[in-house]
């Protein structure tokens, strides 16, 4: 009975969601586009402008070349873990060396968590993951000032499903160079 009811409600809410999408479509609310002129000192806007590409005479951006390890941009983590596992060592090392070789390059490490737990505590957990990757990169030759670590917590999952596979995809640190 309960099962039947649940299914019924799911179907019902599905219909209602669909019904509503059309009623709200007309709004087409524009994304707020207020300038963030009142930065209180964010370092994210300082440093090199441009795309951070230096001395590349092969016509290929190593950061975007699928054959180059630098195009790999995610480090994944085990549940409740901040340990950068061995399989990501090469990736982290390559990016650290790139930063060392390109002192004007700037990078953001974005920490992410799975959906379990609260918004704010997950934000801190994602931060800890990003910090762990940064520590390793600095150890491997990058400058502290080249890397900003931030967290999205559970707010930007790569896979929105609620299962072990999705959660594993979401526990990650994404590597972004300035301007990307």
């Amino acid at each position, binding site marked *: 009975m*309960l099962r039947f*009811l649940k299914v019924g*409600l*799911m179907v*019902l*809410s599905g219909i*209602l*969601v669909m*019904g*509503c*999408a059309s*009623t*709200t479509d007309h709004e087409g*609310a*524009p*994304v*707020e586009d*207020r300038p*963030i002129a*009142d*930065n*209180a*000192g*964010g*370092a*994210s806007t300082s440093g090199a402008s441009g795309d951070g590409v230096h001395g590349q005479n092969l016509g290929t951006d190593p950061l975007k070349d699928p054959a180059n390890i630098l195009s790999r941009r995610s480090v994944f983590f085990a549940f409740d873990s901040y340990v950068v596992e061995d399989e990501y060592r090469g990736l982290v090392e390559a990016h650290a060396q790139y930063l060392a070789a390109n002192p004007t390059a700037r990078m*953001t490490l*974005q920490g992410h968590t799975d*959906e*379990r*737990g*609260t*918004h*704010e*505590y997950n*934000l*801190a*957990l994602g*931060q*800890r993951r990003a*910090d762990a990757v940064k520590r390793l990169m600095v150890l491997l030759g990058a400058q502290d000032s080249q890397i*900003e*670590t*931030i*967290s*999205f*917590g559970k*707010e*930007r999952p790569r896979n*929105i*499903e*609620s299962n072990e596979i999705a959660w594993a995809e979401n526990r990650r640190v994404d590597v972004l160079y300035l301007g990307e």
Partner: protein
Amino acid sequence: MRRLKKIHCFYRFLKSNIFIFLLSGALLYPLTVQAQLTIDIIGGSGAALPVSVVPFGNEATYPLSVSTVIGNDLKRSGRFRLIDETGIVPRPYLPEEVNTSIFRARGADAVVIGNMRPMPNNTIEVRFALIDTVRQETLANMAFTVTSPQLRATAHRIADIVYEKLTGEPGVFSTRIAYITQQGKQYMLLVADADGDNPQTIVTSADPLISPRFSPDGTRIAYVSFESQKPVVYVQSLMNGSRKAIANFRGSNSAPAWSPDGTQLIVTLSREGGSQLFIMPADGSNAAQRLMTSPGAIDTEAAFMPDGQSILFTSDRGGSPQIYRFWIMDRRTERVTFEGSHNVSPRPLPDGKGMVFVRRDNGRFQIAAMDFQTRQTMALTQGPMDESPSVAPNGRYILYSSTSGGRSILSAVSVDGTIRQRIGALTEQVREPAWGPIL
């Protein structure tokens, strides 16, 4: 008072049957398609105080049925049961017109009556009275002179007075709530009346928004926006919509908490490594100062105690996330939670005698309440993914969000766990509710 105690006993009896109420609540789920929140009682209403709300004199000539709004407020609070007054003639509009024995015969312990009439300058006089039919006493007799757009607010005020006279606690029908919605990749921060009416979008973004918190005077709201591809704390005026990035330091900026006087904010910053608590002026006029030192640990989710002397916060300094209390003047820290391996999101009760928080129990995230004196904790919800508790300013209800099947909705539970409300919004994800102050 004795009546209320009896009701309390009955609530306890009902708790054992709470599942049945949840089930019937599911059937009550509104069938209309609308963007606005709708609130349904899904438990406890059967044992409520019987009150009759008589349509106000001349009500039909105005655009809003004041008595309907009052009745809905009282009913949804879970503490009142509406007694039908149809057929009682003549309808009483003034206190002296109430025949208490007729209402008592119908089972009503109290009667709300009123009258409306036009006044100069396009204003309306709304008179109302609350009669105790058992003691045959007039508990309130008031007049409001308002404009037509103020009728709904007037109805909420009257419901607040009725609630306070009959329960001894302030009503929260005139308060506002804030919440976040997500529809696809569009995130919005909305502010609405406590009954879900009059929703107003105050921020729209293509990136996540989290952690809305009303200032103690209700004129501003602090929140975290990811619109610059990192978490930044903003404070926005609810009067004119202007806003300021109050914490936008290198790294992550999150978890704003207002001091009770509204002048300070505690925020979580990662600018000095890890996640640490900092205090700063709420107008951003001065630098953020580190509140305490705990190298390597996560400190976050600060919340001021009502007296402003201490804060509650979440820290994993002891190896697992637990709730601690920090006294700002003498810089003393005390651990508050010891049961279980995961206790987060502390929110003090307005009387300072306890808190609600989120605990993980066998993988289920539940809202729980703790009494500081006895250290007793009680689960208020079952989970599995309940979070973001926000306490009503009268300390009676807790708004929270629950997620299941990838969908999040708002719910409310009374602080003793007896009254449950499901707050429906069928169109989108709704989460992170914040209850505003009594103004």
